[in-house]
């Protein structure tokens, strides 16, 4: 294993490999990306045919708005909570489902466990509303078990709504991690587990000292993407709680949407979007740093 090996670089080769991808992304996304930044510097875009340039005014407004900060805080809670939830459940299930059992059973369990992933957000949101509403199944079961006396309004109680949302988001998002991690698991050399087993490592040690280090590139990639996506996850939150009750589950993406399509404040929406971009960029730089260290 000589990590220094690089395919001999006939100067242009790597660029040729990147070309199709970068062209598509560049052609389709650079204009919109630029536009969003531009919108954030104008007043009343889209609503006005000829908006006026206002510089950083929108940013000042947004930063002075407590609604923005509370949405920011909720976003962090939601993102971090979801990603942790995805990781724990996803990795845990990947390990479980990677166990040495009958191949048919394995196929069955694996397939069943990706189910949360294959339904569109509208359905997921509505179904969970059914399950969580005061007359819904969850309350019924909890009541039957004697755990509650009054039905709980899982999505309507400001103290519970974020937790409920995290449960839904975890349920919805773990299969992605599970599948990615499961694939990664297949690339870990068996000998390493054997060596660790001889060294006296139990399940956790093997996981911690062999699996995780070996899958670091995969985990980092997945975690970064998951973080970025969850950070701007929109449909699930919007359709499930709409940011409420009150603004208890309002996150930056729903705030953006609210500004854009409820309030028709597209310039401010773009401003919030740019702020999301900046925060995500910070994650990314962290990721690239880490990757650089690995190389």
């Amino acid at each position, binding site marked *: 294993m000589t990590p220094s090996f690089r395919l001999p670089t006939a100067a242009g080769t790597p660029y040729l490999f990147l070309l199709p991808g970068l062209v598509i992304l560049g052609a389709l996304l650079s204009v919109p990306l630029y536009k969003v930044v531009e919108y954030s510097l104008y007043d009343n875009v889209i609503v006005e045919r000829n908006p006026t340039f206002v510089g950083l005014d929108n940013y000042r407004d947004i930063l002075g708005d407590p609604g923005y900060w509370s949405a920011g805080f909720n976003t962090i809670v939601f993102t971090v909570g979801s990603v942790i939830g995805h990781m724990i459940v996803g990795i845990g299930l990947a390990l479980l489902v990677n166990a040495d059992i009958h191949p048919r059973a394995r196929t069955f369990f694996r397939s069943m466990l990706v189910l949360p992933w294959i339904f569109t957000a509208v359905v997921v949101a509505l179904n969970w509303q059914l399950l969580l509403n005061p007359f819904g199944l969850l309350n019924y079961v909890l009541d039957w078990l004697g755990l509650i006396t009054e039905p709980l309004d899982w999505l309507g109680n400001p103290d519970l709504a974020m937790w409920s949302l995290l449960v839904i988001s975890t349920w919805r998002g773990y299969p992605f991690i599970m599948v990615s991690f499961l694939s990664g698991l297949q690339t870990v050399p068996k*000998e390493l587990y*054997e*060596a660790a087993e*001889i060294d006296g490592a*139990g399940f956790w040690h093997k996981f911690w000292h*062999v699996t995780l280090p070996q899958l670091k590139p995969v985990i980092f990639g997945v975690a970064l993407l998951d973080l970025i996506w969850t950070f701007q996850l929109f449909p699930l939150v919007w359709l499930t709680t709409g940011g409420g009750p009150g603004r208890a589950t309002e996150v930056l993406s729903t705030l953006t949407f609210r500004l854009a399509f409820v309030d028709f404040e597209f310039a401010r929406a773009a401003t919030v979007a740019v702020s999301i971009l900046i925060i995500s960029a910070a994650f990314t730089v962290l990721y690239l740093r880490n990757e650089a260290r690995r190389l």
Partner: protein
Amino acid sequence: MSRIEISNLVKMYGSHKALHGIDISIQPGEFCVLVGPSGCGKSTTLRMVAGLETISGGEIAIGDRVVNGLRPKERGIAMVFQNYALYPAKTVRGNMAFSLKLSKMPKAEIDRRVNEVAEILELTPLLDRKPAALSGGQRQRVAMGRAIVRDPEVFLFDEPLSNLDAKLRGQMRAEIKRLHQRLENTIIYVTHDQVEAMTLADRIVIMRDGRIEQQGTPDAVFHDPDTVFVAGFMGSPPMNLVDCMVTPGGLRLGGTELACTLPEGLRAGDRVTFGIRPDDIRPAADLPGGVPVTLPVDLIEQLGTEKLVHFRAGPHELIGKTGGRVDLAEGTEQRLAFDMAHAFFFDAETGQRIR
């Protein structure tokens, strides 16, 4: 220091039978070496002792416990893998310290042990590198170190020296031997290098196609092989083995008549496999008591202090030895002597020794 008892061990890979019922009984503190050609099942046996392969049949006992169902870590063993299996994300130190850390040894003691073993294995300057930045031999040494550092009851080695250079291999060989003398752990050692096997073993087990061909002390195995396979396998260069016809006065070898006394029961006209080690084929001058023959020289391999000389005897090739400084030319005829006191005869069909 535990006894190891392997009885009727069977391994199936799907429908392919890799081991056909192996019996080995290893005394406490004994150094047992498994040798055999590639694919004969050495690693498989070792891995079953380690608990890395399921046991398809038979029983393995370490100490007084049948370990069939036990996990590797419950068996009190350490193992060096044929292909290293170093943890790529840990430094050399981390690799070596890992098992000690898992056993909750105090940090100072871990450091002491790791440093000591690193010193023995000449790994000290590499302690903070990761395996990817090591050469092949360096990695192999780290793998060795990782096992040695644990100081277990039973050591399992799977060709630990195969990637070391000759000098280091010699050193490490002696080192392992001393280690064994000092610690007296029971050792099972897999190698395909019969020099290692001879020098290290208290007991050599020679395997072939998933069966044990012969086991015994190095001396017994080398000087008193039971089968033509063992005879051919032990010794480098290998014993010359030639199918011959028995004549009234000895053997016919290619076109040459070889006068000698044969074991009883062999009659003129019988076909036997005649075996003689290269060391016992020498220039006639070096071996006054030998049976003289003259053969043409086919190829010469210079080993330094010795030369291997390939002779042509009819359709057969025979290898003899001369001193490294003896002058010989390929293509010339050479007067040789065979030391028939050390010749072997095997049934041409079954390969069993005829004494």
